């Protein structure tokens, strides 16, 4: 195994992670909700009374973040077709599996939930296998 030292950013990644943890803490302790992005967005498709405003507000906050700070220049290699297929898979998969990297990953692992640990293991293994196929076999 070789480490990509040029792109390795342990401190900024740790700091960003701490901010994500603080955001999840705010949402659960102040609003009583799980900071799972796919769940928050997906919930808008089956709207229930009193379930819309906070979801839209959270999403607005996410979308406002680039106003405060610009991240590193993104490297997006995927083609138009790959982005469409990947987006569809992420939309269907997170709905069917009830969560993504934030809901199952961050919040679920923080809660020591075996269900979220199983989900996180499943999407990590699938992601690693896919990256292997795309980078080394295709």
């Amino acid at each position, binding site marked *: 195994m070789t480490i990509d030292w040029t792109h390795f950013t342990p401190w900024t990644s740790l700091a960003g992670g701490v901010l994500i943890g603080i955001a999840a803490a705010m949402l659960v302790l102040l609003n009583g909700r799980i900071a799972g992005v796919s769940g928050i967005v997906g919930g808008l498709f089956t709207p229930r009374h009193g379930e819309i405003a906070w979801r839209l507000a959270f999403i607005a906050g996410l979308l406002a973040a680039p106003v405060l700070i610009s991240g590193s220049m993104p490297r997006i290699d995927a083609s138009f077709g790959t982005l469409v297929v990947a*987006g569809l898979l992420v939309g269907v998969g997170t709905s069917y599996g009830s969560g993504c990297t934030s809901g199952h990953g961050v919040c679920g692992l923080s809660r020591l939930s075996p269900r979220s640990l199983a989900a996180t293991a499943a999407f990590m293994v699938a992601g690693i296998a896919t990256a292997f196929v795309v980078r080394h076999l295709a």
Partner: protein
Amino acid sequence: MKALMAFLAGLVFGVGLLVSGMTDPGKVIGFLDVAGAWDPSLAFVMGGAVLIGFFAFRLAGRRAKTFFGGVLHLPNNRDIDKRLVAGSVVFGVGWGLAGFCPGPALVSFASGQAKAAIFVAAMLAGMLIYTAADRLIHEPRRRARQSG
């Protein structure tokens, strides 16, 4: 008040994603590609987030209400079933293909990345397809089970 708190949480979440490097699909795939030149940064993102989250959810678990006296909606589903695993695998394949997961894709879209906009549109379509299929397939089955 609730909407304001949710907005601030979303804002801090989004800033965290930008600072961490999660909004760069190249970095995400660099983490998933363990056989290539591996970038372990994302393990630090998860580590930092879970470190804070662990104490926050422990505190939430001990409380009956939020700090504002509202209801704490904590998940009570504990089933590790086919849906959970199959859905997560499908999500993982999409994540590995483009390097985007839902949160970073939305933030990247707001940064003006055209490619992130394509991904977000497809992701929303996927959620819509799921919702429609769920209504068509699962809802009648649930009703049949209840009446039968």
